[in-house]
């Protein structure tokens, strides 16, 4: 049995006197897309922040590529091959698109400057809109374009794992569709991804494995193919309308046989 790319064990974390995570555990195999779902306050984003290193774990451990990274700073985790598409996209508004991408390649350029040119061209090939607007200030772009930039900025460093936190938050339905295409395209690269998403239908259409959270713990983990709308309703307490939407997303995912690590089933 191969070691998972990311192993999260019994993580507890919080702020001040408040403990938000109470023993979170899950694995993310190489090449898979893991989704973390839950209602507001379930601890999804705090889990992502613990994985990224911006919130310290009070106990438990996080192993990345077999190494214990629990105490490492966010910068060192990025240098080890972790990429981020943070909540709210967090592009640098006063920098141009190209400057944002160059900053995204900070560790890559420090390792080998020659790899930056091809990496930049790779991002521009994948997101032509970024090539067209390379000199535009990121803060003047639309939400969907900023989402492309945030994903491009994470990809340019050639990470092994990308943490994507609430990518559809604040986006219009059209921009969410564009983002879906972007993330589907990223999934085809074979990069491992951990996705936190409030929009369950949108998230389920992307992931291989779903981890459902309630009040700071993972209450269900399993392949999306084995997830039914009743499980969603039980663990997430979602309403009928949302349940129907999530159910249809599940039906769409369950139609073809789910094969781990394969991205061919998804339309490009």
């Amino acid at each position: 049995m191969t070691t998972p790319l990311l192993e999260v064990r019994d993580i507890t974390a919080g702020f001040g006197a408040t403990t938000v995570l109470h023993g979170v555990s899950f694995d993310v195999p190489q090449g898979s897309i893991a989704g973390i779902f839950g209602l507001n306050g379930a601890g999804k984003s705090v889990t992502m922040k613990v994985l990224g290193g911006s919130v310290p774990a009070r106990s438990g451990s996080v192993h990345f590529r077999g190494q214990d990274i629990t105490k490492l700073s966010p910068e060192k985790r990025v240098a080890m091959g972790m990429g981020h598409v943070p909540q709210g996209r967090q592009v640098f508004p006063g920098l141009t698109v190209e400057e944002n991408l160059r900053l995204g390649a900070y560790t890559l350029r420090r390792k080998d400057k020659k790899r930056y040119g091809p990496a930049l061209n790779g991002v521009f090939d994948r997101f032509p809109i970024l090539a067209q607007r390379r000199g535009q200030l990121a803060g003047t772009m639309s939400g969907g374009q900023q989402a492309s930039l945030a994903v491009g900025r994470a990809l340019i460093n050639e990470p092994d794992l990308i943490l994507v936190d609430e990518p559809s938050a604040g986006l219009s339905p059209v921009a969410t569709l564009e983002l879906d295409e972007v993330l589907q395209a990223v999934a085809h690269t074979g990069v491992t991804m951990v996705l936190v998403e409030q929009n369950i239908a949108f998230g389920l259409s992307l992931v291989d494995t779903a981890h459902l959270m309630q009040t700071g713990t993972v209450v269900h983990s399993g392949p999306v193919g084995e997830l039914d709308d009743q499980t969603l309703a039980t663990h997430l307490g979602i309403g009928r309308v949302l349940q129907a939407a999530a159910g249809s997303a599940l039906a769409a995912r369950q139609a073809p046989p789910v094969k781990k690590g394969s991205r061919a089933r998804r339309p490009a």
Partner: protein
Amino acid sequence: MGQVLVLGLISGGIYALFALGVVMVHRGTGVLTFANGEVGTAGLFLAALLVDGWTIPVPFIDNPTLPALPWALGALAAVAFAALLGCLFEVLVVRRMGVSDPVAVAVATVGLALFLLASELQIFGESPKELAAPVTGGPTIFGVIVTPTQIAGLLLAIALGFGLQAVLRRTDFGLGILAAAQDPAAVRLVGVPLSRISLTIWGAGAALAAIAALLVEPTVGILYPGYASELYVVGLAAAVIGGLNSLPGAVVGGCVLGIAQSAATRYLSDLHLPGLHFVVVLVVLLVVMLGRQLLPELIKRMDTAPSRAAEVSA
């Protein structure tokens, strides 16, 4: 008029150097620092100790006298000491304040300024001291003898203003500084070492203050506790005039204030107004801030006026 310009540019260069330090720290951290004037003074006292071979009070040692070093070595030690003070403040105070409001960190810089002022008074007393100028003489421009340190102050301010601007835009570390002020959390998530950026900024801002203090001292001729802080206040105003985030703007702001003060001294000295230098700073600051608010509105009105006239005639 030529004299006014020359004298204005001489003091403007010094204000610009102080303002560059203000802008560096503000641009990278969002914090307005009030400490760097006194940090520059502390560096200057160290230079004076080393260059003049002062006898300093040290417990348990009878009248220890330091060997006199050349001015350049003393200046180098002053800049290094100021940079060290800036870095220590970052490590011991700024870093421990975490993600505090920049206003809270600004208040902490006032604390550092007061601590340094009190230390200087305790060690060196209130009476003014002297530091021998590294070189004397210089060319006469419009009847004003301009010393080499005055020329160096202005040229260094211009070179640093435009040079640092290029460094910020063209290097990865510079881009990291620009991005850090916009979103420090996101900077860490792209792998840029935020702590190193912060350390560099605070160290560089303090070093710039020491350079400014060293270059202005030969013109003033004396140094005393709080000496550079008076000039630093004008540097702060110059940075605000330049837009607080623009390094070339800080140089322009410094020169504008220098020339305005020089003109006021030349043409208004007969009024015998107390604190004329600072009144000028206040007036220029008000004019620039009001202009910045009113000018866009004025341009907008001028743009819409012809179209309204066309509508009426139609």
